[in-house]
Structures are given as structure tokens and as C-alpha cells.
């Protein structure tokens, strides 16, 4: 399908400029739909879309309740791709949109390119073992794209801003809503990262990694087991194909074996430095500099030299 129109849907205004820039590179017409106020929309008008529709969710409604309304808007075009930001709500909205548009969803798309009449979507499969290039064979397609995949354009034209009139459907009764303060960091935007793996023996030893991060001016991230099994760091801190994909200038990888699913999250880093006791650890094949040694000796000495 030729899909000359892309709808960009986001519940986060700051994500729009990136997403619209990626959409603009692949399609002639870009319509953005933002969940936010008129003021949010005015602030995001330079996002690069031709049209920007905004909607503050009604009382008791959330963005995913607008899936049917957005599908109706999309169906005004004979064929289109819908690009949704890859948040948890975004993925819920995307799945519903897919049903209303009778199409599948491709999540965490890492590249979108036009090849003649076709829009080719690339994403990782099998835990990072392979990348798949796919095209939609139906009039509509739905994808989700995370932060850092596209770069916002500097000189994007102003969009024509208008309210989106669609009504919510199927809202659930919310008993409570608590904002979560788990100290999560924005690893996607980080320039330097200290990456902690299972070579760290105890939760207290994270302090050592934090100290190194402090002297380097880095954020702390980790591999999946450290967040999911040990729960030493919030889930938003784990990097990998099923976690955050980062691209810092420098990543210092401590006690990480380097399974492919983790490498898939960090291999866009400019410089990778790894410390691991096990010389045969696959991380060394993916590092610019590897230190085969005990991180409990290397890291304190490194902190001292850098302080």
C-alpha cells in the first residue's frame, strides 16, 4: 500500500517533533493528534505536521478510549499509516486502533523508509537475533516508535492547529491513580551511562557504580535481571531489545556478560568500555575497550583516578 499519509498520535507533546520528523521523511502528508490542552498544542505547533489536532481527554477518560474516534478520522483517507508513541498507553491505543482499522500493529519500530510505493518498517525480532523488514498489505497500518529513533527537525513548518472532536468510548472507572516516583532516569537522552550487570554481587554495591557515574557525569542503567529479577533498579532502567535502547557517547559496562538481547539496547553507543572477570564473555566482542579483571578492584581505582 502506498500510504502517502501518516497520522502521528502521541500523549506526550515533547515526543511529537521527533515522530513527525520521521513521518515527514516517509510520507507526503502528516497529521498529528496530540492528547493535551490547546496550550500544549500551540506549544507543539512547530512539530513538523501539516495539521495538528488536539484533545484533552474528558473527565474519567484516557487516551486509549479515543481509539474508535481516531480510527474514524484515519478512515477519511483511503490508506494511511498511524504512528503512535511507544508508551504503555500508546501501545494499548495502538492495539485498539489496529482492530478498528482491521490491521496488525508493529511495535518498537526502529526505522521507517520509503521504498518506491512501499513503506518499509524495520524492527528487532527473536530477542535481537534478527531485524525484520515488513510492509503492510492492507490499506491501513499501525506502528509504535520509541524515543530517540528519529531526530526532530530544526526548521519544521507550523502546523494548522484545530481541536479533535472525537468522543471517548469504553472508559473504565478509576478507583485511584498514584504518581510513581521510582527515580527513573531518561537513559535515551543520556550522554554517558554506567551499565550494571549481574557481576554486581549485592544491592549495596550499586553505590560503587553510582559513585563512578557521579565522577563521569553519567546516569546508571542496567541489564534485565538486575531490574526484573533483583529489582535493584526500576524497570525503566534496563537496556535491551525488550527495554530501553540508548545511544550515549560513552557507556561503561560493569559485570555484564553481553547477551544479544542486552547488546541490542546499547550497541548504538559511540564508545563502549567493558569490565568483566570472564575473558570469554561476549561483551568483549562488542566493546571498544575491554578490561578483563575484577570490577571490585578496577572501579574503586578508576573512581580515585578520575576524581
Amino acid at each position, binding site marked *: 500500500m502506498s500510504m502517502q499519509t501518516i497520522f502521528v498520535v502521541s500523549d506526550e507533546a515533547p515526543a511529537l517533533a521527533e515522530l513527525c520528523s520521521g513521518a515527514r521523511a516517509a510520507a507526503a502528508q502528516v497529521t498529528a493528534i496530540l492528547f493535551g490542552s490547546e496550550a500544549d498544542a500551540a506549544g507543539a505547533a512547530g512539530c513538523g505536521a501539516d495539521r495538528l489536532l488536539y484533545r484533552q481527554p474528558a473527565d474519567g477518560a484516557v487516551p486509549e478510549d479515543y481509539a474508535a474516534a481516531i480510527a474514524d478520522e484515519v478512515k477519511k483517507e483511503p490508506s494511511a499509516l498511524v504512528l503512535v508513541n511507544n*508508551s*504503555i*498507553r500508546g*501501545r494499548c491505543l*495502538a*492495539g*485498539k486502533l*489496529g*482492530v478498528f482499522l*482491521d*490491521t*496488525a*500493529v508493529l*511495535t*518498537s519500530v526502529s526505522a521507517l523508509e520509503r521504498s518506491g510505493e512501499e513503506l*518499509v518498517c524495520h524492527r*528487532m525480532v*527473536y*530477542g535481537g*537475533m*534478527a*531485524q*525484520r*523488514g*515488513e*510492509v*503492510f*498489505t*492492507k490499506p491501513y497500518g499501525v506502528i509504535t516508535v520509541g524515543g530517540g529513533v528519529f531526530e526532530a527537525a530544526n526548521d519544521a513548518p507550523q502546523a494548522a492547529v484545530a481541536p479533535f472532536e472525537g468522543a471517548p468510548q469504553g472508559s473504565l*472507572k*478509576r*478507583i485511584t*491513580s*498514584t504518581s*510513581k516516583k521510582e527515580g527513573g532516569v531518561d537513559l535515551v537522552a543520556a550522554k554517558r551511562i554506567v551499565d550494571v550487570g549481574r557481576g554486581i554481587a549485592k544491592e549495596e554495591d550499586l553505590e560503587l557504580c553510582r559513585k563512578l557515574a557521579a565522577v563521569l557525569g553519567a546516569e546508571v542503567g542496567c541489564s534485565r535481571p538486575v531490574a526484573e529479577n533483583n529489582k535493584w533498579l526500576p*524497570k525503566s532502567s534496563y537496556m535491551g531489545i*525488550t527495554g530501553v535502547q540508548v545511544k550515549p557517547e*560513552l557507556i561503561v559496562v560493569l559485570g555484564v556478560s553481553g*547477551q544479544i538481547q542486552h547488546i*541490542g539496547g546499547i550497541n548504538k553507543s559511540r*564508545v*563502549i568500555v567493558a569490565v568483566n572477570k570472564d*575473558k570469554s564473555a561476549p561483551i*568483549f*566482542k*562488542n566493546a*571498544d*575497550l*575491554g*578490561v*578483563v*579483571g*575484577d*570490577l571490585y*578492584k*578496577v572501579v574503586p*581505582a*578508576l573512581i580515585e*583516578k*578520575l576524581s
Partner: protein
Amino acid sequence: MKVIVCCKVVPNEEELQVLPSRELSFDGVPWKISQYDLNALESGKQLAAGGGSMVALSIGSEAALGSSKIQKDILSRGPDALKLVIDDSKPFQDTLQTAKAIAGAVKAMGEYDLVLCGMGSSDLYFQEVGVQVGTLLGVPALNNVTGIKSAGEGVAEVERTLEDEVEVLEVPLPAVLSVSSEINVPSVPAMRDIMKAGKKPVDKLDCPDCGEPSLKTLEQLAPEQQERRQELVEGDGEEAVDALVRFLKKEGF
């Protein structure tokens, strides 16, 4: 509570081989229960304890689902019975086709309170099938669920954890919930569970109408190895640390 747990059988991605052409080889790769579906099975087991029922549903190829070993593996994790939709003519490589097959099978299975899915499959990891199943069935559908409890007849109280917010929702049943990997720690089946699994019923259902695929795969290749310098310093004494510091300085850090 009557619970249906969806459970996918996938090739073990850790044993896939990359061929020189960068294509993947699936030769001799064993099948396994998709990792995050273990959380859905555990949730189902907990909800069905105390008078409920739990049935597992799996959809896929004969190669994936035909062996009694994998069937027993699923059944040792809590379900009373296993329903299978086996169809080698469908690729089941896109979320909508898979969701239509599951929704059709769920309808054929009669009344239910909850359909549970894992957060995403180990092979394709779309994280979308559960939401699409619920939407196709016209019932509430939620992703990233971190807590479920019964809240009286026909209602569940569902905790859902978003990036920066935890919401607790009143969900009328039936509903389809995709559980997060944070919801529980899947238990390892005891010998008794494994023995009992062989006696539990396994039924095959006809493949429901699930339409044409929405996607065409153009290529599937291992990512090109990123060029890395792979310089190596051995040891953890002062020399090694000095080499590391020199490297960082040289790189401008």
C-alpha cells in the same frame, strides 16, 4: 473465577544460529513456553485457586504444539485443561491474525471471566495481541497489569503500572488482561504437578476464521556486527586502570 490463559510456544531464541548469509537457522532449535507467558500462567493459577477454573489456550503449528512434552509442560503450571488450535497453513506472524484466532477460540470455549496474556512473546514481542483480543471480543482490554483481584460478582480490581503512574481500575468482567512480568515470580512445577499434567485433558479446536495477514516480511537478517575496536587489557591492577584512564582521556571523556 473462570480464567483462560493464552500461552505461546516459541523457538528458544538463545539456541538460534546465525548463518553466514546472516539468515537465522531454526534447525534443531527446541521449543519452549514463551517466557512472559509464565507470568500469565502463574496469575491464572492464583486466581483460579479457591474454587475457580483455569484453561490454557495455545495457537500455532504442529511442530510447536504437537509434542506431548510441551503440552505437559504447560499443564504442569496450573491449568485444568489445554485447548490447542493447530494450523500449519497460517503464519500467525502478525498481531491481528493471531488475535482473531484467539478471539475465535475463546468464543468457542463458552463463558469466561478473564483471558490472561503475557506482556509479549519471546520471539516477536509485539505486546499487542492481548489488547487486540479484548477489542475484537468487545470487552475491556488492558496492558501492563501488575495486580488482579476479584471485587465481587462480575467485577475485578485491576492495578496497572504506567511509566510514571499506578492506576487502580474497576473492570467489569469478562475482560482481557495482559500481565506485566512484575506481577509475580512464576513458580517451578513440583514433581507432583508434572505427574498430574499427563492426566489432564488436551483438546484440539478448529482454527477460527482469522482473515488474511496484514503484513508481508521482506527480509529477516541478523544485524550487522557493529564495528568495535575490541582492544583488551588484562588484569585489575594499577596498569590496567591507567590504560583505561588513558583510553577515556584519548576519547575525550
